[in-house]
């Protein structure tokens, strides 16, 4: 029986594909690699690797402990390398307007009731509920892909991360 090897990437090892242009501009594909982006990022930077109108996919290099953040809408982190712990707190009073896009920093400790804790490893996806406060931590450098909406702290550096 044939044995198959499923290939995932990591911060330590990944292979990057590419674009064979026939009659086009490679910039039209905004081609990047999440591990390459995370390798070049500071911890907890939120670097957009996908953008569709107001929506973004952010790569976050998880390393150490993040600040507490909150968001008016649901967000969804997917761990692509390493292990990340998420703490959740139900805020006594929501801190952001209902129409605010993206997460914001609390600038301190959350005031509210502890909701729980989740430990994610590679391939695990979690829910960051709207109006909860959350904080992530990782003992070693890890990679999170966050499904969210473009916010004040979203970083766009397309020319640096994309094939051209």
């Amino acid at each position, binding site marked *: 029986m044939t044995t198959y090897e*499923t290939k995932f990437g990591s911060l330590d090892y990944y292979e990057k594909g*590419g*674009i064979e242009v026939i009659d086009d501009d490679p910039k039209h594909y*905004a*081609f990047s690699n999440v591990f390459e982006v995370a390798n070049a990022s500071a911890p907890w930077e939120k670097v957009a690797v996908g953008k569709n109108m107001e929506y973004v996919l952010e790569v976050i290099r998880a390393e150490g402990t993040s600040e507490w953040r909150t968001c008016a809408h*649901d967000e969804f982190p997917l761990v692509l390398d390493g292990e990340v712990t998420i703490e959740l707190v139900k805020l006594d009073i929501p801190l952001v307007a209902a129409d605010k896009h993206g997460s914001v920093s609390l600038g301190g400790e959350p005031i509210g009731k502890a*909701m729980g804790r*989740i430990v994610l490893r590679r391939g695990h996806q979690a*829910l960051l509920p709207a109006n909860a406060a959350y904080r992530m931590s990782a003992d070693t450098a890890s990679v999170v892909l966050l499904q969210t909406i473009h916010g004040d702290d979203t970083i766009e550096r397309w020319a640096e991360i994309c094939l051209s």
Partner: protein
Amino acid sequence: MTVTDVSATAPNAQGYRGFKLGGFHFSRDEFFVHLSWPTGKHVISADTFLKALQRDVAWDFFYGTVNFDHVFGTVNHYGTVDMFAGRFNDAYRKAELDHSENFDTLLIRETFKEMLDDWTNASFDPFASPTETGKPFGVKNGSNTAAVTRRRVAANRMVGVPGDEQIRTDATHPINRMFADVPQDDPDIHAEPGFEGEVAAYNLFAYLSRSDVTWNPSVVSVCKASLYCPTTEEYILPVVHGNDRVEWFVQLSDEIVWEVHDRDTGAPRSKVTMKAGDVAAMPGDIRHQGYSSKRSMLLVWENASPGLPELISTGQVSVYPVDF
């Protein structure tokens, strides 16, 4: 709508019914599907046609254009659907042999569903990898209604959240042979009393390793109109998808090669090779078809905003993902 609204003939000598929709006629024999329209006719392998038809039905005509091959396909207008022959083929258009008709979605949906059910034999599953199903050929031999009417997974918030789509288990979804090495561990979830419904996580890679279909994006998480639609890919995408909006891909595992052509003319534009961790956009003016030698995990990321196609078609939004 009732079944009598679908125009169909009695079974032919091979046991298959014929179908008519507007000026288009469809019939099948042991090997081929035969199409005709007022300005021409066409033949497609039953294998190719059924796999494309399955996806067009399951995706409710998807976003934009679903090309069954270089001649025939559909364009979704989200309430009505164009069915065309030669419309996105330069030679057909120059020869003025192209033809297109617009139908109410309900009518074309019901016609396609009946056609798919009648023409799919018991041993064939159009969603399965070619190595995991029987052949579609031969005279009519039963049906596979359960396979062709699979419910499309569409989470409201996220897979695994109480009351939403649930994770896959051995009982219903064994691990695919090509994903036998994918870890099946669960996240560690510690919910305080009262918050069990909101402290939620699951293993997406394990979930995908248990998918029983190929090239069939299903929704696993929803951030307003931002939809995560991961899918497992093996062999060739059975349709050539023409974009009416920018669509993003994140290659989660292994490798896919995308052939990218101009949406309207079919002229080649690029080949995009994506490996694990790569992210790329498909612009809003192209058509694409993927090739995956080993079963792979692909995250298709869609913006389902209803006004987006009009914003793009009227030039208010670029067909390209970002400007840099």
